[in-house]
């Protein structure tokens, strides 16, 4: 459900950055631990962007992994939710998860006129 509010924000941020130019693509960076459903965002986007400079633009989701580091044996691996119950190498529960919470618009592709 919150994908609706998120999509509205994506459009607002992108249109703001486009400074009047037509937007062809929006590149989003989304950490795997920040729960966003891509299809849902795309669905809302197609409706909400209709009358804006972002109409018809393609959304690209760059999924940023989270990484787990074991405090006991040093093992490091990238993870997706759900979190692993313990270190896959040594079964210690002393894992530290970092990253994966990213949540921003990285860049947009806009139309820029050159030549004649």
């Amino acid at each position, binding site marked *: *459900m*919150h994908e609706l*509010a*998120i999509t509205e*924000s*994506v459009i*607002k*941020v*992108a249109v703001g*950055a*486009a400074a009047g*130019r037509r937007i*062809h*693509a929006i590149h*989003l960076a989304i950490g795997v*631990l*920040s*729960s966003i459903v891509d299809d849902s965002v795309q669905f809302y986007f197609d409706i909400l962007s209709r009358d804006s400079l972002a109409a*018809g633009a*393609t959304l690209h989701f760059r999924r940023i992994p*989270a990484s*787990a580091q074991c405090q006991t044996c040093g093992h490091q691996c990238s993870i997706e*939710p*759900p*979190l692993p*119950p*313990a270190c896959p190498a040594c079964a210690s*529960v*002393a*894992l*530290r*998860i970092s990253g*994966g*919470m990213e*949540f*921003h*618009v*990285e*860049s*947009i*592709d*806009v*139309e*820029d*006129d*050159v*030549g*004649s």
Partner: protein
Amino acid sequence: MVTIEHYNVSDAQLLSRVIGDIDAPYQTFDRQHGLGIHTRSLADYWNLSGNERTVSIMKKVDVIQAILSDNNAVAEENRKVLDGVGVFGINVMASPGAGKTSMILETFTRLPEGTKLCVVEGDLASSLDAELIANKGIPVVQINTGGGCHLDASMIRNALPRLPLDEIQILMVENVGNLVCPANFLLGTHLNVVVASTPEGHDKPFKYPGMFNAADVVLINKFDLSEVFDFDLEYFSSGVRMLKPDVPIIPISCRTGAGLDEWVEWLLENR
């Protein structure tokens, strides 16, 4: 009119191709075929498209802006309002029925003389919780999200003028019962309290890392039922610590009162 839909090359490269090497291959994005990338020379393209030479090229603009930056800005305003009157704001997040309202009421009865509380109640539709709270003589503003799954900063901004902020020290915001969405929306409060409860099971931090990652303190309510539900405190805690090694985890029971003094003491020390 030639419209080149999309470029994977930088502006400088592109310009040199448009002006310079007309036979160099380049990539276009074809709307008809989705993500298909075609490589051919600009000369081919122009031959196909006649003589008009207006070329629209794509430019990549770096943005790097938080998706919810608008909400974050309003949250910052809210924070200033609260700081201006010396009110400590708490965002209470939990699943439906975990015991948010119960915890707020139990906290209220344990606050020392001179420390007053008021409440913002976020609810999908009803005002049941707000009535419960008002009946205890606690100032409360009800926000109906009308189906929305979370509170956002502008809802709090609208609620603040309706609260007696000059007379209170602590603002408790009961967020909509939901372990996913509220975590993304800053409200401008100072502290995120996540209320888990034993009937939900000890695996919640593993399944809802976004929520537990947002927690400044985790309360485990309904601890009177921990045996009934085979609740493994160690396992639960290991999940929280993977995300937030230093977050306090306090088992409580709004039924027996266990742990609540410890929680209120922690709150008063850390506000």
